[in-house]
């Protein structure tokens, strides 16, 4: 095992989740240190998104604990976990379709303290400034007034990423951030992810199917198969790990 879980930003210990008769996750343990970029790979159906859903509180786990910044979160609900600074993006890319890109950004500000007064208030101009900067960062500034639902799939993915950044997270869980994106634009996205990590200090845990992307991006990688943790290590090690190769080839 490379590194240790002490002082980890995110730590999952022995997490299990089943749906009826299907075991989606079985005894999975992983950790992510602050500032790291960690990858999560595995063939389809290996339980990656289920693990994400468990971590962010989308459903309760059957067994195991999950700690974020030292705090036990497995009993918390989705909005509470998001407000602690753990934000996720969705595989199918979810944005607020009928609102403009800029409005999507505005409402993605952190909602840590919400009183009646703040709920009924206006947005201060700093919010728009920040929103426009982030939209510029992902290259959507010109399209900021278009309805989010009218953007192309790739543009929506970028918007979702920008919204996540707007939320000032400590850590981002990204579910297949490059899926469905034009290959020529993928490098740009990887670059932005790296910058978000380096400049903004955001820890990243990334589910990816694109091997080139994840091998380049991640410092450490976990591989899941059949709901269990199969292997863990540096990208070079996993690339040549026979178990990982078998899992992918066997899955076809």
């Amino acid at each position, binding site marked *: 095992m490379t590194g240790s879980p002490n002082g980890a930003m995110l730590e999952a210990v022995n997490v299990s989740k089943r749906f009826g008769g299907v075991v989606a996750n079985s005894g999975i343990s992983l950790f992510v240190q602050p500032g790291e970029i960690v990858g999560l790979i595995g063939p389809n159906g290996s339980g990656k998104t289920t693990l994400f859903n468990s971590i962010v509180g*989308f*459903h*309760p786990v059957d067994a195991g604990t999950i700690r974020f910044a030292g705090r036990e979160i497995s009993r918390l609900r989705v909005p509470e976990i998001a407000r602690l600074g753990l934000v996720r993006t969705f595989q199918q890319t979810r944005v607020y379709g009928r609102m403009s890109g800029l409005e999507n950004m505005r409402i993605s500000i952190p909602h840590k303290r919400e009183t009646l007064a703040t709920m009924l208030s206006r947005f201060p101009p700093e919010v728009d400034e920040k929103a426009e900067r982030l939209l510029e960062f992902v290259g959507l500034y010109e399209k900021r007034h278009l309805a989010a639902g009218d953007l192309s799939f790739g543009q929506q993915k970028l918007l979702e990423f920008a919204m996540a950044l707007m939320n000032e997270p400590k850590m981002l869980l990204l579910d297949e951030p490059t899926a469905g994106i034009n290959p020529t634009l993928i490098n740009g996205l990887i670059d932005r992810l790296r910058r978000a990590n380096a400049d903004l200090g955001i820890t990243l845990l990334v589910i990816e199917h694109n091997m080139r992307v994840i091998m380049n991006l991640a410092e450490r990688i976990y591989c899941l198969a059949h709901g269990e943790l199969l292997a863990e290590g540096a990208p070079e090690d996993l690339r040549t790990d026979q178990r990982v190769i078998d899992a992918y080839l066997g899955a076809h």
Partner: protein
Amino acid sequence: MSNLQLLVDAPILLVQLIVDGLLVGAIFALAAYGMALVWGVMNVINVAQGEFVMIGGYVAYAIYTLGIHPLFGVPAAALFLFVLGWAIYRLVIFRVVDRDLFISLLATFGLSILIQQLLNQIFTSDVQSADAGLDTLFLFNGLVTVSEIKLVAFALTFVIAVCLVVFLKSSRLGQAIRATAQNARAARILGIDTDRVYAATYALNAALCGAAGALVAMTWVIQPFQGLAYTVRSFMIVVVAGLGNLPGVIVAALGLGAAEQLAGFILGAEFQIAFVFGLLVVVLLARSYRLRRKRQYLK
């Protein structure tokens, strides 16, 4: 609440109420199962369900006023409503099947109002019933009365339910309906004309309601504005029992019938309707609460 004391003093009253409740509950089961069919097959909640029941009741009433025995109203209403249901599907429902669930809810709600008001214009807002001319049975030394028509109605609902189940299991159309309910896309790929299935399902549901309505006219009363209560009862039963669970629907319907009679007695007849609608709220909230503990919600 002195009525509650009465129940304690004379438990035979409890028997009366429960018997009445079970007998009327069987009729609820018919309408509820129809609603479950339409909901399961085409994902439409037919808010006009109760109005179909009332139309059925008025068909039975109409033939009763013509001098024919109202029991013939059961097949007559079923047939009339089958045709009407098909027509309504072709005119209105098919346009809302694949859309937003709220649109189909509102469309059938609009239908419900349209039908209520039409019935009101035609038949006035007086309550009506159709006398089947049958006797009353006296049980337990005359302390419990059961009208024979209610027993006949109970038996008929049983017969209708059996026919329905057989139809769905064995006939081609029935199987097509079940296939579409499970997976409409797959059914279409296999060559099933889903539009026809939808029309048949909706018409079948209407026929079920029609038969139920004719029975209501004979065992109880009908009135243009009482339809919504039947819709709400059907909805509640389906929510409690779950789609595609016929035994569950029957149990829930009988239970609701009994509960209503008890509530009507304990709280007073003027609160019986309040009980039905209030129970709806309670049932939904209870369901929702149970799901929220698992971080889910009613879909």
